[in-house]
């Protein structure tokens, strides 16, 4: 199935070229991403004795073992050279083909023994450089000298910290994270095989005693089950299995397809270029480089979806037709859904109302235009904004878990959690509305000699009140959806019903809850947006 990845890359570039957008952009993107992947993405597995001893070397780290991998970097480098489009396309085509050939012949390499050579400080330096570089870029607009100083200080500081005992205590895997893989001479492998076969009699005697399957003598390292023996692993010896895929392999194959297709299209039509190709290519490369490991980390797999399909069908089978009521057993799920749904709406109403009650007064303290007056009001402003920012970061669900622990299971915990989280959200929206009011009426009321509070009351409040109502309605819509999920953490309502029905396998009752949610969510969204359109 590995051919899917280059095909995907090919399709991306082909679609871009067919829609007449720049092919050179994807050529650059492929080249840049190949270079980055070459140095940073794991390309294979090298297994030790324990599973945590496994290392996943990059193509660059594997260079001492198999030099042709260097061609990947070379292809990437050639692709980013600024040459005439046709020549660029030619080099890209060759590069794409070479990368594909190199990758597939690496995958076909036999298993071999290798020693890992850690390069201490390299990862630490890379992280520190990235942090410093980012700060430099962010501050460059303000002052070049400041950016340089801050960038250097941060880079130097974080390197010393990360590469010192502090960094290695908190991040134990960071030390010597980047590793070179140096192959061991053939004698070592033969020695290992011989030793394994010699020790087999003893192992099998033991295995027979406890009734395990007997092991056969091995002929090559590929037959070796698991990894290398304990003592060898401790010396830094690993068993490299080139055929094992890591996301670096996926990325390189995808990028090779991308490079190849974009180069072919560029050769055929050198007009497919745009002015900012290199920058937009960099952006595209960043997107690929972020997405590929993310897909890998989330264990995304179409295969498993296909495998799981029958279970999904079974699930639907068991939930249809819905069991609306079963008087014989004294079960009335539809009625239960209706009352739990009402509770869910009520949680959202009370939560939003309480939040509004606290957000309205506090939002005036968080409006920059009202708090410029003195150092005291500026401090109040900063504190209120800080409270909002922290509060916004703590999700309703997390607060609900805490409140369930404090006040017990039930809707009250949900209401408290929702109210507290929504204060920040509403307060921020309200205060932005206050900041955007027209200056004119404020000035006019100051000019008639009205006091500060009267200016707020008569010049600001009439302007922001409709917005406040609109934002509150909007927050209520969100809170209703949140309150559905709140039931799952024990805060009552329709979510609680669904969880119970699911846990007891009564899918034909659960489905009523799901259908009810779909209907009510849409009703509330529709009603609230209609109301809001009337207001503003």
């Amino acid at each position: 199935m590995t051919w899917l990845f280059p095909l995907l890359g090919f399709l991306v570039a082909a679609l871009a070229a067919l829609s007449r957008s720049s092919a050179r952009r994807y050529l650059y993107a492929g080249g840049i991403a190949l270079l980055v992947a070459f140095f940073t993405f794991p390309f294979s597995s090298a297994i030790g004795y324990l599973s945590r001893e496994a290392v996943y070397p990059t193509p660059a780290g594997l260079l001492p073992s198999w030099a042709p991998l260097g061609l990947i970097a070379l292809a990437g480098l050639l692709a980013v050279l600024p040459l005439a489009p046709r020549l660029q396309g030619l080099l890209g085509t060759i590069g794409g083909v070479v990368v594909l050939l190199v990758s597939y012949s690496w995958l076909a390499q036999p298993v071999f023994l290798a020693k890992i050579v850690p390069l201490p400080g390299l990862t630490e330096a890379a992280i520190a450089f990235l942090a410093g570089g980012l700060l430099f870029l962010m501050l460059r607009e303000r002052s070049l000298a400041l950016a340089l100083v801050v960038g250097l200080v941060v880079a130097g500081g974080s390197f010393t910290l990360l590469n010192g005992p502090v960094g290695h205590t908190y991040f134990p895997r960071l030390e010597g994270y980047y590793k070179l893989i140096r192959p061991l001479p053939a004698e070592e492998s033969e020695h290992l095989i011989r030793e394994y076969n010699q020790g087999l009699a003893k192992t099998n005697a033991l295995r027979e005693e406890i009734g395990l399957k007997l092991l056969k003598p091995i002929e090559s390292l590929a037959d070796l089950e698991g990894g290398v023996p304990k003592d060898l692993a401790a010396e830094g010896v690993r068993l490299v299995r080139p055929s094992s895929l890591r996301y670096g392999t996926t990325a390189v194959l995808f990028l090779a397809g991308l490079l190849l297709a974009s180069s072919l299209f560029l050769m055929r039509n050198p007009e497919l270029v745009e002015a900012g190709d290199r920058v937009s290519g960099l952006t595209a490369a960043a997107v690929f480089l972020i997405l590929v490991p993310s897909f890998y980390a989330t264990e995304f797999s179409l295969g498993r979806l296909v495998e799981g399909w029958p279970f999904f069908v079974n699930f639907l089978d068991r939930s249809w037709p819905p069991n609306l009521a079963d008087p014989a057993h004294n079960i009335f799920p539809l009625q239960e859904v209706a009352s739990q749904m009402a509770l869910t709406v009520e949680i959202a109403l009370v939560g939003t109302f309480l939040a509004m009650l606290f957000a309205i007064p506090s939002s005036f303290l968080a409006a920059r235009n009202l708090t410029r007056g003195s150092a005291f009001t500026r401090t109040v402003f900063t504190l209120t904004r800080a409270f909002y920012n922290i509060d916004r970061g703590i999700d309703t669900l997390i607060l609900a878990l805490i409140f369930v622990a404090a006040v017990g299971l039930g809707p009250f915990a949900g209401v408290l959690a929702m109210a507290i989280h929504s204060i920040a959200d509403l307060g921020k929206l309200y205060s932005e509305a206050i900041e955007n009011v027209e200056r004119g009426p404020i000035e006019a009321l100051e000019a008639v000699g009205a006091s500060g509070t009267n200016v707020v009351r008569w010049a600001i409040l009439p302007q922001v009140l409709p917005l406040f109502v609109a934002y509150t309605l909007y927050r209520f819509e969100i809170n209703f959806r949140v309150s559905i999920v709140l039931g799952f953490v024990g805060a009552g309502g329709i979510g609680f019903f669904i969880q119970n029905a699911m846990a007891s396998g009564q899918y034909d009752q659960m489905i009523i809850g799901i259908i009810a949610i779909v209907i009510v969510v849409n009703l509330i969204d529709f009603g609230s947006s209609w109301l809001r359109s009337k207001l503003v």
Partner: protein
Amino acid sequence: MIEAHDLGVTFPNGTEALKGINVKIDDGEFVAVIGLSGAGKSTFLRTLNGLVKPTQGAVRVGGVDVGRLSGRSLQRFRRTVGFIFQQFNLVTRLTALDNVLHGRLGYLPTWRGLLGLYGERDYALARTYLEEVGLADKQHVRVDALSGGQQQRVAIARAMAQEPQLVLADEPMASLDPRLSDVILGLLKDYNEAHGVTVLVNIHVLELARRYARRVLAFNQGRLVFDGPVEELTDELAEQIYAGSLEAL
């Protein structure tokens, strides 16, 4: 009585909006302030009710040094000075009557203002002046439903409801149809004559200044370049006032 003595305003960004202004205006005068935009007319008017603080010299209105006022005393002073803005600066979501009543806020204790508890007299005054500007039938109409000319008349009624000793109008016709200029200026002129209240109007149209004002103050790049009866403002002089500024542009 307005007395400016060596009045100067320099903004925080370094712009010198006013330089060395010396002027004296008696009670009950109707004065037109002319000059190109950016000449300092607006700043001059705004120093008279404390919206802008002088950075040099002083200005006295009715014997009060406006630049020294702050807080409660500034509010007490401001309620005696009506200010009419080019952009009306009404609270458009409230009714015409509510907006005119705002002119009375300076006379109410804060708590009554907050609750909108105006007295009988406040309502009577607001209705009288709405009638005076010809909008008696619009008192319960929301301001955003009124035309531009009507909105400016509401703003004028708001200033009158303050029962001021001085009315300042900053380009009151500039956002309106030119045909409405006579309505607005006529209202101000009638008010000036009927109540004997000093009125200062910023106008950049020379023709209007000539028609309504007895006395003209002309500003050019922050300086008072002419102060005298309108008859003395010859065409040559006027040309200098405007042309000099053009060169500076």
